[in-house]
């Protein structure tokens, strides 16, 4: 069955009307806490499609398309789960207002409903375990060396659950978060609470180390043996991370953020060029890819 689908969902995605529990400022961004009916749980690195604003009395036709968002945190039975009705589970997404759709999401009020489809795509662990995408730099099987998670801008939101899971498995985890300024280091306190090694960089020096996140990455790789890099952020940042990792003989996974209309493999809008030729759908084969599979020059 999964062979025919072309994708093996750990949990089949559902379409639901998520209930807004909270819509909070998060530095320069927003933290949206949602109670999702029938949410089957997600794997770190998976994403969802969120309607561009609240469901109202009238059908919203503009902006039309849902927005892909990383599943930032699964609160499930923890913390605010007391707010939940039976069958609902609590998740969070982090975002920044970059256009009309995200502006409408920033306006969501408590108890409003927003259409949601997910979880979607393949997360870090699934892609790592996929024998069809072997990494020439790596010995087969799950990685066991140090994990270096590199997040840039809103890409940070893809990394929290992965950091949590890796730390719980006993992997040595370093998290490097980079952004324009202090207010863009989304989720900082959550990462701090994980107790993993955490370094922040800002381009304006308003928090952490002044500069790009790729600087501390190179430093870390010089000190590490058998490390794996997981990088999520703007394309130039991920490409630079991939090149730095390759120069140090470390394997590297990235999570792409191409525009998409559906999120589940039918609009074909999110195609990313492969180094081996042809395209891979970010929504279905990704969003996580071994970095060396991507034809970086072919990405917009």
């Amino acid at each position, binding site marked *: 069955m999964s062979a025919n689908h072309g994708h093996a969902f750990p949990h089949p995605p559902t379409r639901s009307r998520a209930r807004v529990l909270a819509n909070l400022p998060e530095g320069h961004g927003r933290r949206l806490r949602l109670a999702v009916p029938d949410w089957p749980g997600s794997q770190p690195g998976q994403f969802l499609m969120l309607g561009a604003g609240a469901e109202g009395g009238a059908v919203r036709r503009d902006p039309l398309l849902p927005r892909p968002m990383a599943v930032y945190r699964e609160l499930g039975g923890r913390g605010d789960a007391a707010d939940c009705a039976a069958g609902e589970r609590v998740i969070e997404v982090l975002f920044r207002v970059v256009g009309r759709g995200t502006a409408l999401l920033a306006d969501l009020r408590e108890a409003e409903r927003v259409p949601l489809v997910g979880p979607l795509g393949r997360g870090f662990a699934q892609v790592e375990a996929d024998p069809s995408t072997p990494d020439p730099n790596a010995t087969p099987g799950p990685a066991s060396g140090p994990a270096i998670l590199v997040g840039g801008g809103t890409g940070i939101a893809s990394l929290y659950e992965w950091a949590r899971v890796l730390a719980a498995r006993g992997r040595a985890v370093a998290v490097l978060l980079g952004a324009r300024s202090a207010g863009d280091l989304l989720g900082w306190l959550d990462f701090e609470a994980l107790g993993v090694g955490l370094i922040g960089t800002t381009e304006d020096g308003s928090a952490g180390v002044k500069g790009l996140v790729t600087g501390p990455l190179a430093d870390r790789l010089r000190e590490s043996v058998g490390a794996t890099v997981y990088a999520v952020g703007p394309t130039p940042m991920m490409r630079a991370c991939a090149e730095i990792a390759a120069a140090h003989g470390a394997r590297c996974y990235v999570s792409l953020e191409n525009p998409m209309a559906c999120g589940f493999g*039918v609009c074909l809008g999110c195609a990313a060029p492969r180094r081996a030729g042809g395209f891979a759908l970010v929504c279905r084969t990704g969003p996580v890819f071994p970095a060396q599979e991507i034809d970086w020059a072919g990405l917009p």
Partner: protein
Amino acid sequence: MGGAAVSGKTAVSGADVDERVVLAGIPLRNAVLTASGTFGYGTEFAPFLDLTRLGGFVAKSLTLEPRHGNPPPRIAETPAGMLNAISIENVGVTAFLEEKLPALPEGVVVIASAFGTEPGLYAELVARVTAHPRVAGIEINASCPHVKSGGIEFGQDPRLLAELVATVRRATSRPLLVKLSPNVTRIADMAKVCEAEGADGITLINAIQAMEVDVERRRPVLSNILGGLSGPAIRPIALRMVWQAAQAVRIPICGVGGITNAEDAVKFLLCGATAVQVGTQNYLDPTAAVGIAQGIADYARRHGFTRVADLTGALLSPKGQ
């Protein structure tokens, strides 16, 4: 149980209405199909809905050989719509017949969509899908607005269109629909060509040729420069074309273009469509088509129609005429 019976009737609203229609000789359990290129090969939607509850679906357009699409960016959001320039990326007819069709549950009505760069290639493909028992009918894509050759060329030139339809007609005895391009001056003329050359029905409309520009980068948004506009923005244009074509031909019309809900779908039926296809809305709501079918039945009942089929062409004259 009197109260229960009343609430039971509400819960199965529309059950008293005959939802079945016959489109180009294809019996459908309801009037709502899903449009080619917006529904993959069907299995992608299996997590979200029971595929057998659809009237049917038109699969992604096929070519004889597998085909890669355009480089990114391939899509762009526009006011109340979106552009796409995918360019008929598909698995090829062999994988469709051997892998995609067998993966579908029994009872799903599948219409195959054929694409080619010349009539002989369309005909060869159509002959191959005709041989498969799971294919209920064939839609030929004479209208893709964003490939370098083929598709829209046929849909814009009445002589080329006549040659294409006649050639494909000779290759199949299965129900044959022709999906026409809206990028023409007189859609009625193109509809008449299809009817004269033996098509069993017409699908109207494909996406409208369009473009978008990123002013900061001073570049076209799409790598292909031109794309096809779909979504609610095109619905009134699609409706006008269905109405015009319905005045011109007797073969059935499948209406498509910007349908988001049952009210939209009913408009197409009233203007002369026998059935409708839901397209871009599947991206936003993969369960949309099933709800739209239910809503059409509800509309029919509210307006005293016992058969959804009777909604076709039931548009009244403007008030006062």
